[in-house]
């Protein structure tokens, strides 16, 4: 144990956990990283490429090394940063990216082969032979590289999403964030304060600074209490704001139950879409490294992280109590770590400061003008080489803190192409003024990292942000604080021949950058891709600026001249589960149920998804072992008797107004204004480019009241299109449009006995052929007074009707029709039979109206009225379309038991099957129980003149061809007598 005194852990709440199967104990308030350190565990994983032993280097979300596999079974979670994993009782974690035990990784051989893995090695090595990539190289690389592994089991947890709105979003709850929240909260603004940490305070919890001459924790607690008492403030801990989107929209993930062993009834994580009028970016700063030879051994970490572990978690970075700790720094900040460690009773060897004129802050040994030039220790640091004025000596140490300066967390400020600007005094990039509108950086994120200045800057930012939205906020009394000394030298790395790591996560060294430079990959964008620097899951939070500095040195330019890296969302990794947000399986998307759905379900129907709809596909009966048996039976029942089918899914739009007829004349290709009241007409809609768009019926219920139907698939689109013409093109017309698709349950009653069946349910209505002829419509009552609409229309080619009742009565009507029609052999039919019936009749559906076809091709060219203008009319007459000679035909295979596949292409018998000789294609195909043969519909060049010809239908996908005879598309009742009788 290397637990120190103090800290913000609850020693009364011990927690047991395992790492690589070994049991350890930590406390509530620990992270996995702090608990491991406190147990003397430095070695936490292996590096990505070279499988070098690695330990934790940071204390926050920027951690590049300590990535573990958390949990077991279906909840196994790879690549979890040990610094962000809150300890809970029973936590189980494993290191990753090694073969065999962590301390004897077989793939460590990669390290010996490192000369082959230099910058650009993927591009250089695996290029040849080309065929080897997929079969050999990629699988091998994936197996060796992949970091953590997935359980391959479905995620058992629930994820959620939500929407929040506020005046001011504050990202980060450190000194600046808390000051901003208090300022805005007291002003009455709606405030959201979000922080990725599980407690408030940010860096204040990790420093030894006092506020109002007391521990910072006391001030944090009082601010927390006040903010919690304000109804206008929402505190969101464990919440990472990961992206800034247009107009003040932010993406955030709240880890609701990641800190629990199992979420129970809770959701695991919530994806929040936050709309904020203004935002304060108080995301703090991230410490950077100073690359030197062999700087990646476990035990070498950021000095600020070392300080954080000591102060907040009472965890010492060394393996054994009493092991010496050294600090390597280029500025004043490293000295703070030495002071804090000494205060905790740690054995501090001294501070190695690259500045020749450095001064000690306290009683410890100072190596001024010195650098660290080497390290030893196979699985953990044992000694370091300190070089001063050309003289080197080795010192035994168990840990080394490295302080290379702090980079403001500019990430969110650069999400809208905001390019950070270089600050020569801070030696860092700070957010520029051209970042996302309404996002105001404050505190360390704005380069104001001293405690006193961060507090003041947070308050200033809140007042400024609120004044922009006309909320007056007053200054608050800030606690008394100081700004620590922050002098720093522009010292970026220790030159040398050995490997010095810049990007730990992707194993990129100073040498790699030098090689990239030599190979002319100098622009920072090229450098990134050639070396993979900054392209790991940490997005180079700890490495980008060091790399830029090295490249600047090599090119002889300044850092800002060399470039800057901007960041994309997400700030830290976001799980796909939470982005998927919510429902899975059947509830993954909403489904629309027809009014007779439950009845069909009871009858044992098979359902098919049609867009959002669930439709009955067919109704198998006992003894039927193949779907075709059911479908054939249903089709024959309609042709011979009567069938009933729920057709509610067809879109219905109510069109009213004095100009309703004129409007419909313009949106339909054929004339609708002349339709008599009480009549229905088949209608074609074109796109403005002259192609077919949709078809349906148009019924005139009253002088100024029509109901039009659309295809199921296009219901929403046609309604949208009608609104477009109504509002954007002809707003002067008196027309009112509204969808009524769901309001009416519509049931098709089809077959020669349909009239007989309907006559048994209508109330005193003349349903005779004379009284209610083909293409009639009427409002009437049925079943003893229920209002209904009756349409005499037919999709099957038989005598047929559609009857509509308010949706709540749809199921009862269906049941009544079944009951009343029992002696007529009434048969429910589904979408399969519907399809067969319409193909037999040669009626067009989606496959024929596929966006590439015209009215002429359907044989309905004359429906495009010449007497009036309508959408698409002008363009339908243009050369390319008017001359198109392809026509809809029926196709009957010579061997009727062979199926013509839809999508097959048609060729004149004996010609080559090439694009140039293509004669058309098959649109729809089915088995016709009526003809006892497979049949199909298709478009064929000059099809109307080729009836009787035998042609080839080719299905090159399956390498099949068959011969078919060209016939009329109307396989059944071509004269149309049946539907008029």
């Amino acid at each position, binding site marked *: 144990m290397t637990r120190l005194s103090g800290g913000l852990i609850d020693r009364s709440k011990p927690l047991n956990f395992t790492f690589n199967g070994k049991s350890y104990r930590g406390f509530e308030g620990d992270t996995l990283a702090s608990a491991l350190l406190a147990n003397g565990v430095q070695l936490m994983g292996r590096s990505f490429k070279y499988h070098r032993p690695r330990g934790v280097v940071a204390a926050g979300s920027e951690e590049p090394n300590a990535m573990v596999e958390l949990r077991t079974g279906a909840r196994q979670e790879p690549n979890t940063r040990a610094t962000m994993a809150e300890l809970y009782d029973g936590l189980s974690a494993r290191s990753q990216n090694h073969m065999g035990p962590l301390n004897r990784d077989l793939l460590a051989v990669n390290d010996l082969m490192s000369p082959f893995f230099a910058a650009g090695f993927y591009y250089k090595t695996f290029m040849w032979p080309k065929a080897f990539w997929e079969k050999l190289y990629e699988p091998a690389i994936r197996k060796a590289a992949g970091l953590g592994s997935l359980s391959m089991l479905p995620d058992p947890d*629930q994820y*959620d*999403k*939500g*929407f*929040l*709105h506020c005046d001011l979003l504050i990202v980060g709850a450190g000194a600046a964030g808390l000051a901003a929240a208090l300022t805005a909260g007291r002003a009455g603004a*709606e405030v959201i304060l979000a922080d990725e940490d599980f407690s408030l305070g940010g860096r204040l919890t990790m420093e030894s600074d006092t506020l109002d001459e007391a521990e910072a924790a006391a001030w944090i607690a009082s601010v927390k209490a006040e903010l919690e008492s304000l109804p206008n403030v929402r505190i969101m801990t464990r919440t990472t704001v990961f992206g800034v989107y247009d107009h003040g929209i932010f993406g955030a993930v709240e880890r609701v139950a990641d800190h629990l062993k199992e979420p*129970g*009834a*809770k*959701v695991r994580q919530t994806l929040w*879409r936050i*709309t904020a009028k203004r935002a304060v970016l108080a995301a703090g700063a991230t410490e950077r490294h100073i690359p030197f030879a062999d700087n990646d051994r476990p035990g070498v970490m950021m000095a600020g992280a070392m300080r954080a572990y000591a102060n907040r978690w009472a965890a010492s970075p060394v393996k054994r109590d009493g092991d010496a700790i050294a600090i390597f720094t280029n500025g004043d900040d490293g000295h703070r770590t030495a002071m804090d460690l000494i205060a905790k009773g740690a054995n501090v060897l001294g501070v190695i400061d690259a500045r020749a004129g450095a001064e000690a802050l306290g009683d410890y040994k100072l190596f001024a003008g010195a650098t660290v030039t080497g390290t030893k220790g196979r699985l953990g640091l044992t000694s370091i080489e300190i070089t001063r004025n050309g003289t080197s000596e080795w010192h035994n140490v168990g840990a080394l803190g490295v302080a290379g300066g702090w980079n403001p967390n500019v990430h969110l400020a650069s999400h809208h192409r905001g390019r950070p600007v270089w600050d020569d005094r801070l030696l860092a990039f700070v957010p520029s003024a051209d970042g996302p509108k309404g996002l105001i950086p404050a505190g360390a994120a704005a380069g104001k990292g001293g405690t006193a200045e961060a507090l003041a800057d947070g308050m200033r930012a809140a007042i400024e942000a609120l004044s922009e939205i006309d909320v007056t906020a007053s200054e608050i009394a800030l606690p008394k604080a100081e700004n620590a000394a922050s002098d720093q030298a522009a010292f970026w790395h220790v030159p040398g021949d050995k490997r010095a790591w810049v990007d730990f996560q992707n194993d990129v060294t100073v040498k790699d950058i030098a090689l990239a430079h030599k190979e002319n990959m100098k622009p920072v964008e090229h450098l990134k891709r050639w070396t993979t620097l900054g392209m790991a899951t940490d997005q180079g939070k700890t490495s980008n600026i060091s790399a830029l500095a090295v490249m600047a040195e090599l090119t002889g330019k300044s850092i800002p001249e060399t470039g800057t890296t901007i960041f994309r969302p997400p700030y830290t990794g976001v799980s796909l589960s939470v982005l998927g947000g*919510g*429902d899975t399986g059947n509830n993954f*998307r*909403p*489904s*629309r*149920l*027809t*009014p007779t*759905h*439950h009845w069909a379900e009871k009858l044992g129907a098979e359902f098919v998804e049609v867009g*959002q*709809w669930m439709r009955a596909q067919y109704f198998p009966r006992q003894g039927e072992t193949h779907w075709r048996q059911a479908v054939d039976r249903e089709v024959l029942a309609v042709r011979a008797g009567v069938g009933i089918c729920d057709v*509610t899914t067809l879109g219905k739009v109510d069109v*009213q*107004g*004095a*100009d309703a007829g004129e409007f419909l004349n313009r949106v339909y290709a054929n004339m609708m204004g002349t339709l008599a009241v009480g009549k229905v007409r088949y209608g074609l809609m074109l796109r403005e480019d002259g192609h077919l768009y949709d078809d349906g019926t148009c019924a005139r219920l009253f002088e100024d009241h029509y109901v039009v139907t659309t295809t199921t698939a296009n219901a929403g689109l046609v309604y949208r299109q009608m609104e477009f013409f109504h509002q954007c093109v002809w707003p*002067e*017309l*008196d*027309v*009112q449009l*509204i*969808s*009524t*698709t*769901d*309001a*009416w*349950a519509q049931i098709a009653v089809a077959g020669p006995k349909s009239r007989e069946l309907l006559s048994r349910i209508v109330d005193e209505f003349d349903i005779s052929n004379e009284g209610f002829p083909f293409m009639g419509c009427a*409002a009437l*009552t049925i*079943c*003893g*007074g*229920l*209002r209904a609409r009756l349409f005499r229309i037919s999709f099957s080619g038989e005598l047929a009707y559609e009857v509509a009742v*308010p*949706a*709540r*009565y749809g*199921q*009862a*009507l269906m049941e*009544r029709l079944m009951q009343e029609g029992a002696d007529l052999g009434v048969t429910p039919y589904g979408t399969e039979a519907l399809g067969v019936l319409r193909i037999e009749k040669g009626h067009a559906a989606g496959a024929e109206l596929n966006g590439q076809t015209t009215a002429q091709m359907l044989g309905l060219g004359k429906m495009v009225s010449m007497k009036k203008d309508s959408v698409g009319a002008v363009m339908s007459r243009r050369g390319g379309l008017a001359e198109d000679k392809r026509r809809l035909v029926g196709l009957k295979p010579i061997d009727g038991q062979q199926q013509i596949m839809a999508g097959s292409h048609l060729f004149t018998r004996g010609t080559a099957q090439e694009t140039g000789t293509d004669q058309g294609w098959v649109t729809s195909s089915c088995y016709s129980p009526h003809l006892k043969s497979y049949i199909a519909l298709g478009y064929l060049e000059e099809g109307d003149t080729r009836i009787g010809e035998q042609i080839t239908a080719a299905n090159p996908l399956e390498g099949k061809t068959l011969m078919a005879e060209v016939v009329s598309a109307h396989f059944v009742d071509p004269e149309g007598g049946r539907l008029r009788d």
Partner: protein
Amino acid sequence: MIDYATNAVTDLTPITALGGTVARSESFGALSLSENAGLGLASLSLRKSAEKGQEAPQVFGLPLPGVGKATAMGAYGAFWTGRDQWMIEAQGKGEVDFAAMLKSEAPDCSVTEQTDGFVAFEIASANGAGPLEALMAKLVNLDPKAFGPGQVTRTGLEHMTVFLIRRAEDRLAVIGMRTLAGSLWHALSVAARRLEA
């Protein structure tokens, strides 16, 4: 002429949007969720000729509300759905031809029957606005603070389009497409249940 406005005398038995013979309701902590199967709905649109200078008519004594507003008086209510367009509500008129009743109130307007175009779920909180607003935050991208009593809006909810009416601080109606009733109930009940956890 058929007198649609009287109670239907049909012997067909209606079902609710969720497929039951009685309306469904369920409680989740402070929130209760009830299917309002008795709500009659009809849309009302002004004709073009009526726009100039003529005021929107009163129906059932209700003045037609302005943009984004809902009003109610006794069994009747009206809410704005678009420019010159409203939905009129009538409690307990789910099974009569409410559109015909409305048409006789506003003969110069376009009226369309909508009762069964929609399903109405009434959500009530036993603990003030808090639970209701927490539920809204999980479901719709609206600022509850700017959506007080008497406000109505139409928006997306789990890929479905719904009307929301804030009937009171602690009461919210969610009116969605009838054929999506099951999915909408699922979305509302899952969100309500999660608030309990």
